Structures are given as C-alpha cells and as structure tokens.
C-alpha cells in the first residue's frame, strides 16, 4: 500500500513539469501562471506565427539532420572497429570519443566559438553542426555498439557458410539486423541535437539560432504562455515520432533496453 503510493508519487513527480506546462499553455491571459483561470488556444497561434520560432525550428531541423547523420556514420564506423578489432590505444580512443559526456556543454560550445572565430566561420551552420556532432557522438556510438554486441555473430558465419562474401554478409545480414540500433541512435541524436541549448547558445548567430536559443531570447523579453504552447507542440511531435518508430522497429530495440533474440 505504502509502496504503491510511493510509486504513484514518484510517477506523478516525473510527469508534473509536463502537466504544469501543458495547462499553462491554455491560459487566456498573457502571463505564465498555473492553474489558468480562463482557457484559450491563442498562444498556439502566436507561437506558430512568431518568425524567430519558425526559423529556429527550421534551423534546428537542419542542424539535427546533418549532425545526427554525420555522427551516425562516424559512430558506426568506430563502433565496428571497437567491437570487431583489437588495436593499440583502443581504450584511449574510446575514452576520447565518449569525452563529451564529461566535458560540460558550455566548454565545448566556447571552444568551438573560439575556433570558428579564428577561421571566420562563426556565423555559419558548419560550426553549429560540428559542435552538435561532438555532443551526440557518444550516444550514437553507444547505441550502435550495443546493437553490435547483441548481434549473434553465428548469423554472419552462417551467411558465409552459405556462400556470401564479406561484403554481401554485411549488406544482407549485418546491416539489416543493425537497423533498429542505427535508427535508434540517429533518432536519439536528432532529439538531443534539436533540444540542445547550452553549447548552441555559444555557436549560433542570429541567422543560425536553433529553437531552444530562440525560446531563450524570447523569454528574456516576454513571459507569455506561447512558450508553454511551444513546449506542448514539442512534446506531441516527439511522442508521435517515437510512436511511429516503435510501431516499425519496436521501442525497446530502438532504445536498446531489451535484449534481442
């Protein structure tokens, strides 16, 4: 009984912020308050019509798309190398690849800002994408690496025994079986990149600012529920994306939380 209550309390606590923000989004008044007294959809319209949010969303999608795709290629290559081969400095290389988990995001952002200013790239997308690649690489690497570990290598041996050359084993057995891990890694990277604020604040310019940066700039001047409305839309979009991924691939596989047969 006490246990059940404790579990419910924890679950409630976890979803509390989302619930509060969702309710605040429907406040008719131009204040961020909870709970609202009168209800309205108008802040959704405001948020959708605001130019900085629109361009921030497009920029965020561009950056997330490029950064997670590049990280997927690089991360997959390294995951293969780490899983299949023994080579000198293996642990060191692994540590460097995962280092952005311990280095603060503002440090990485600041570092890229200094570098980009040196070579005159500070106003372009390239530095934002490069920065995000470094930030999401550990997650892609882990995701693909875990999928590779779970892959029964006897399947590859079986394919070879049936006459498949190494290239065809890769194309017909290894990669198709890694698809959930690859898609999961890409999706996780894209969501993280789209969400990333701290490093993005340093490396984005007015022309390249991503949605979280645009939201930050907005909230410094205004405090109306359009922020909350944006949050609700964001939650819905992400939930839809994950539901679709789950339907096609199985969420457990995508997030690598369940062992594969």
């Amino acid at each position, binding site marked *: 009984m006490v246990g059940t209550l404790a579990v419910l309390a924890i679950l409630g606590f976890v979803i509390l912020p989302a619930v509060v923000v969702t309710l605040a989004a429907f406040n008719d008044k131009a204040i961020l308050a909870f709970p609202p007294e009168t209800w309205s959809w108008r802040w959704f319209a405001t948020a959708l019509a605001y130019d900085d949010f629109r361009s921030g969303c497009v920029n965020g999608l561009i950056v997330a798309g490029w950064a997670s795709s590049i990280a997927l290629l690089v991360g997959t290559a390294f995951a293969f190398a780490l899983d299949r081969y023994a080579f000198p400095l293996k642990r060191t290389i692994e540590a460097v690849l995962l280092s952005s988990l311990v280095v603060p995001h503002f440090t990485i952002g600041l570092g890229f800002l200094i570098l980009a200013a040196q070579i005159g790239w500070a106003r372009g997308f390239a530095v934002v994408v490069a920065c995000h690649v470094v930030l999401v690489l550990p997650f892609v690497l882990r995701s693909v690496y875990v999928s590779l570990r779970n892959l029964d290598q006897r*399947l590859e*041996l*079986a394919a070879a*025994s*049936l*006459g*498949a050359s*190494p290239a065809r084993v890769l194309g017909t057995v290894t990669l198709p*079986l890694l698809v959930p891990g690859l898609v999961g890694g890409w999706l996780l990277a894209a969501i993280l990149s789209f969400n990333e604020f701290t490093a993005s604040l340093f490396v984005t310019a007015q022309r390249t600012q991503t949605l979280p940066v645009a939201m930050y700039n907005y909230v410094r001047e205004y405090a109306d529920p359009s922020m909350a409305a944006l949050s609700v839309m964001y939650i819905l979009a992400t939930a839809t994306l994950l539901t679709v991924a789950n339907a096609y691939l199985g969420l457990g596989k995508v997030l690598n939380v369940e062992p594969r047969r």
Partner: protein
Amino acid sequence: MSSLAAERRLEGHAETLPTSGSDDASVRLLGTCKRFGAVTALEDATISVRRGELMSLLGPSGCGKTTLLNLVAGFLAADSGQIEIDGERVNDIPTYKREIGMMFQNYALFPHMSIAENVGYGLRMRGIAKPDLKRRVAEALALVRLTGVEDRRPHQLSGGQQQRVALARALVISPRVLLLDEPFSALDRNLRASMQIEIKEIQRQLGVTTIFVTHDQGEALSLSDRIAVMFEGRIRQVGTPDEIYRRPADRFVASFVGDVNVLRARLDSVDGGLAAVTLGRARISVSREPLTRVRPGDRVDLFVRPEQVRFAQAGEPIAVEGTVAAHIYQGDHVNLYVDAPEVCASRLLVRSLEPDAITRWPIGARVGVSIVGTGAIAFEAEPDQRGGEPRSG
C-alpha cells in the same frame, strides 16, 4: 579431384602429403594444429572422412572437436598442417568459397528473413534464377517435411521446426560436406530422438558427407558410421561405433564411451596375444596389446561393461564381493550399484533385466559378482587413478 585408383590409402599418416590422396576421402586433415595463445586446441590432427559417411567428433567440452569443425568450415585458420575437401587444399580458401553446409547449435536462422528466404539464401548468393530457386526451396522444405511455413519468420516456429529449416538451408546448396555442431542439444528428449532418426535418414538418402560434433556418447554411437573420440586436443581413436565401444584404444575412450566399471585386478600370465588377469576367484582372459609394459604379478585396471557382469550363479567363480548400495529403476532394466571398495574405487554398476531385481537384491545385501563373456579389457594401472563413477547412459 583425380581418381588415381592406384594411390594407396594414406589414412593415419601425419606428414604433409600431396593432395588427392585416397580416392574416397571427402574431408581430410593432415597434421593440423590450432593454438589459441598458449592453449593448444587441436594437436596434430590427422583424419580422413570418407565420401558419404557420417563421422562424429565425440569428446568432452574443450577437447578440440568444435575447433576441428571450425577449421573445416574455415571460421578458423590452421596454424599448421593441411585441410582438404574433395582432394583440394582449402587452407587458404575462405568459408564462402568452400561449398559447405553448416548447421549451428542455435540454428542461426536469419531473424529478419522469412523461412523461404532463409532456405533460399545460399541459392541467392549463387545467383540462381527465381523460378529455379523457388522450386529448389520447396524441394528442400519437402525433404525435411516442413511445408506451409514459407512466409513465416523463424521465431514463429518451434525448436524442432527451426532445426528443419536450418537443415534445409544447409542442404539446398548441395554442399560438399555437411557440418553439424551439437545439433540436438537444444531439443527436448522425445523430439531429439525423432530428429536424430530423421536427420540420419536424410543424410543416408542424399549420401552427403557429414561431420557431426557431439559430447553425447549415446548420440554418437547411434548415429555415426564412424566416430573420432577426442580428448585434450588430440584424436584418441577413430573407428566404427562397435570398435569404439568394444575395442577402446585407451583408458579415456573406454571410460568416455558407454558405462564402464574400472576394477583393480592383477596380471597373472601372458600367452601370445592374450593375457590372463585375476580378480577375486575369477581368471579373465584379455587382450595383451595394451599391457606390453606390465609384468605378471603387477596391478592392472580391468574395464568391464555393465552387461559383462552379473550376480554370480551357482558354480560361477566370484570376481567381486560387495554390498548392494543403490537401485535405479529404468523400466526395462534396473541399475544396481554395489559397494566393493577394495576392488572398485567407485560403485560397481550391475545391469539386471530381472523384473524382481530390487526385491531379490535389496539394499544392504551381500552379493557376489561374476564376469561373463570375453569383452573385458585391461589397461595399465594408474597409481592415483580413481576410475570415475560409472555414468548411466
């Protein structure tokens, strides 16, 4: 392969020999070694598997049997020695060009492909055109008596069905040799027996050379044309099941294959190819071959199968006296374990077909055991060898 009929059979020779040796050898290993770091997994293996025969590699885990199979498959590279398939040296030929069929212990069916795609995989890799491919897949599935599941996925099938798919997938490419790695270990007992019969039938029907890895001596005895018994990286004996069971080459083979009682006896006399051994009041005639270094009066270990001993009948010389310690009822027979510590380090196993054995020889009864027939074998005594517990088959 050339058919040099005049060429002598070269089986048993360890040195590297020119290819195309014996005309009926399908797979040959000549002096093959494989080490993993400091561990020698396979030591100087020389063996010849004849065309169309089913050869078992039998031994406990870590004996090198799986290493040998992986060398033939090309999953591992030999450190030295030669591996031939159909008279062709394959040491440097990768797996995918060896034309082999392999069935894995866990079947290794491709989970992302349908059953038909799994079975047709090897044909696709060979560029077989679709109509032909479809026909051959259907034939292979019919051969293993599995139809109507073409569109299902492997995880939707039972263990026995998955095994049939794995077999069909390996056979559909008409491999030069079929390799089976502990194929029955994942099946329950009843299914195992019926799959064994079926695979043996299919193997005989197709006449495909088969190498079969198992640690189960009963399985090896019942399925094989010949058995290679392996221990600690070495092939200890190659022979028909009957030869392995009745004329084991050494102590290890004698105790690993079938149940056996190891009894402390004494060499009495030697006469030509035969030797006489005394045990209690019995004199038992054995082959002298394994006893060349033993002199009359020395201790020897007498290996006796459970069916070669019985409770002594009137007038029979008693070899062992002891106390009945346990009964194991097996339906058609009863295993009786007799304590005779001065003769047998573990308990002596006597197999009785008498339905009333349990009441006739109750626990605690003093019994005399005699040796029947001429099947016993004596080996040199090993000072600290405590001849393990007889295992029940």
